[in-house]
């Protein structure tokens, strides 16, 4: 099964790095979509089904936390797992994010092995 992925980050270079790292991970991938903030991500999710979202926290217009909250209020989107990709690595912050429904947390910078492990943990697969 190939996974559709949405990458949400205001930095084009980070979106490219996440996509490249996903491809290097060896995980089966379908469509890879990108969005530059939470608002654009929610628009993308209206007409594209994705299996997992990788999102930054700090973004202009709508940050990653607000995006997760909006997804939790929206029918089928509440079942789509969100992985936060960020530099904010406080244990307290990560506990707060999990309480809001975030499924996993990936520290920048990261390796293909780390992103593969997250995919396997969140989607319940093993390559």
């Amino acid at each position, binding site marked *: 099964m190939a996974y559709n992925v949405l990458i949400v980050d205001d930095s084009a270079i980070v979106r490219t790095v996440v996509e490249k790292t996903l491809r290097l991970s060896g995980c089966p991938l379908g469509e890879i979509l990108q969005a530059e903030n939470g608002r654009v991500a929610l628009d993308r999710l209206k007409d594209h089904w994705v299996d997992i979202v990788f999102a930054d926290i*700090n973004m202009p217009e709508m940050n990653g936390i607000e995006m997760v909250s909006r997804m939790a209020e929206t029918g089928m989107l509440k079942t789509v797992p969100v992985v936060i990709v960020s530099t904010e690595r406080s244990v307290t912050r990560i506990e707060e994010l999990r309480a809001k429904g975030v499924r996993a947390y990936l520290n920048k910078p990261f390796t293909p092995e780390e992103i593969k492990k997250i995919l396997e943990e969140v989607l319940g697969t093993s390559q």
Partner: protein
Amino acid sequence: MTDARTVLLDVVKDVLERFAFMFVEVEGAESALAGNGDGLRATIQFQGKQNGTLTLMAPKGFCQEMAANVLGIDPGQVVETTGQDALKELTNVVCGTLTWSLFGDREVFHLSVPSVATVPMSEAAAVLAGENGVALMVEGQPLLANVSIEKPTG
């Protein structure tokens, strides 16, 4: 050398290696700074147990080389905005790692969105002013970093 300066130096070296696959050749390279040409200066604010500002500055050519390394492409294919994006992201990752390293893993810090501006490299001395400024040589080009930390209130 202050504790914050030592930590900043270690964090910049570590993040450069893991984020951009670039290695610091010389630490304390203030005397080797070139005053010519344009550079990029990125800043980010952090708020939490203590507030502060992190600044990184480097020649535009360095930022484009870093972007090329991160993306795995030829430096000639990198447009200027991608170089700016790379320096902003380096600043973001250094700041997140720095607050964690300085203040521990229980403290929550809110980071601003990094901003970047084109400035003459002759402003290097201003970036290095204060007790935490560091100048490094990375693959033949200077990279400057400084963190100012406000005194805790109350």
